[in-house]
């Protein structure tokens, strides 16, 4: 904003509300942290102050990393997320580019069709998909989820990239074509490189959704060594009606803090990517 502001006004407009949002947003993480450090005896004690850890222990983290397949799940989750993101970005671009920069018959219809596929909800698709995946012999393989996750990611990536592709000025494209480049070469060498921030923001979104996905993983991945973190944690850090709370919370933190840290480097690009993408939609 333009006017100069005293510190009181700044507190009211920035620090207070920001503090409020941070408090509400991060309070559960504080709880996760202290639960992951509390020995079981302390965890269940209602008489002591629950918001402090009196005898912190790293036992839950150690158990999680050594006695469970958490590292395997993390590896699987990363592989699946990277692969799904890559597929979604590639296929999303292939959809977005013509819709953004070309004029041709049927464009509107195609755009509507792609949007419509997004409307088909996962809780409906999982039943027929389970059958299909089983019959293809892909159950309990990472391929099953790598193939199915992009179905929920491609439409959003495409929408985002459409907005970004539209912002590249026509002059650049015309200049390239005058120099003799084909549309394909123009796309690859001129337009796409200018849209890297768009790919970053779409990629971040796709990556986050992939590593958070639960339903398909629950149905397709039932063996421990192919599971992803969400399914592995819920299925195996719980035995019957006994939850291993400390390990679950440790898994939550180990599964999210590194990713958030990485994001902090890309957030600038994420916002910039959405900037170009969204308003021009």
């Amino acid at each position: 904003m333009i006017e100069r502001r005293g510190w009181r006004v700044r507190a009211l407009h920035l620090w207070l509300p920001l503090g409020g949002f941070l408090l509400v947003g991060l309070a559960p993480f504080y709880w996760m942290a202290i639960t992951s450090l509390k020995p079981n005896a302390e965890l269940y004690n209602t008489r002591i102050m629950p918001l402090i850890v009196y005898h912190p222990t790293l036992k839950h983290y150690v158990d999680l990393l050594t006695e469970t397949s958490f590292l395997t799940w993390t590896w699987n989750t990363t592989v699946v997320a990277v692969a799904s993101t890559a597929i979604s970005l590639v296929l999303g671009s292939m959809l977005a580019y013509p819709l953004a920069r070309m004029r041709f018959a049927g464009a509107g219809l195609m755009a509507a069709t792609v949007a419509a596929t997004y409307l088909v909800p996962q809780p409906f698709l999982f039943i027929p998909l389970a059958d299909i995946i089983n019959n293809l012999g892909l159950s309990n393989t990472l391929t099953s989820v790598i193939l199915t996750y992009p179905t929920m990611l491609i439409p959003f990536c495409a929408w985002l990239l459409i907005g970004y592709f539209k912002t590249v000025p026509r002059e650049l494209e015309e200049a390239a074509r005058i120099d003799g480049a084909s549309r394909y070469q123009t796309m690859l060498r001129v337009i796409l490189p200018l849209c890297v921030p768009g790919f970053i923001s779409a990629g971040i979104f796709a990556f986050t959704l992939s590593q958070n996905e639960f339903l398909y993983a629950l149905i397709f991945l039932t063996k421990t060594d192919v599971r992803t973190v969400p399914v592995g944690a819920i299925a195996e850090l719980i035995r019957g009606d006994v939850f291993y709370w400390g390990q679950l919370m440790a898994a939550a933190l180990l599964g999210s803090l590194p990713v958030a840290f990485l994001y902090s480097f890309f957030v600038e690009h994420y916002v910039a990517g959405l900037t170009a993408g969204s308003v021009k939609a």
Partner: protein
Amino acid sequence: MATATSTAVAVARRPPALGDAIGRWLDREAVFSWLMMALPLVFLFALVGYPFVYGVWLSLEDRPVAQPGVFVGLGNFIADAHDPVFWQVARNTFIYTGVATVLKMVGGLALALVINQSFRAKNLVRAALLLPFIVPTVLSTVAWMWILDPAFSVLNWILVHAGMARPGPSWLGNPSLAMASIIVINTWRGLPFYAITILAGLQTIPLDLYEAATIDGAGSWARFRHITLPLLKPVILIVTVFSIIFTFADFQLVYVLTHGGPANATQLFATYAFDIAMTGGQLGRGASVALAMLPILGLMIIALTAYMRRRE
């Protein structure tokens, strides 16, 4: 003769001409576009279109697990219509989606306005605010189980010590509070996504628009109403559409937290369909419940889009 030579010349010239012709053909807008879109369209057709049709077929069958299906036409849907729980589930999902979306929209906008300002550690703070969105939902929900346990909840502790209640509200046992709880958790989880997306939109609004308005004497509220909001509409619309689709089909939160309890107060379409299909072994009936989501979802999106477009 001239024709013979010209023919010979024509023959000699053909191969490069053919390559050129193919190249030119490929460069035509329509051809290029369709070729580009071919692979993704095939992918979506195979993994969404075909299962969708298959799923619709399932919903028209009486299809118990491990048994062949028997066509029953609209039998499943009629049975669903007679199922009182089905209607409760529909109401729940509607309320859950509606309230959570409004909260996320308003909250997201507010947060976006706040973090649009410049301050130190901006990127770190923005990433930290994204944490609820990043952490796997099922795991954060497990944390919320403790946060909402009357014996451990900070809120209950405050209320009890202020003398207002003993032992304090049951966040997951009372049907209304349970619905409120899942709405709160969903909002907590989804608000950052709204905020970051709207933030992007905010940053594209040219500053000179605000300058001009200020010179004309517009106060900050007027500036917000007449400049910020209208220009943000497309962003808000898009992110709301995506948010509605996700929230309407939400599964993880309820599956872990209450599994639909107390007495179906938090049962949603997704969890209900899952129970019927997987625990009850009725794949056709389960598909019919899940399919019921589609028309409602479609109508909501169309209505929202029309409303927003009209107001422009």
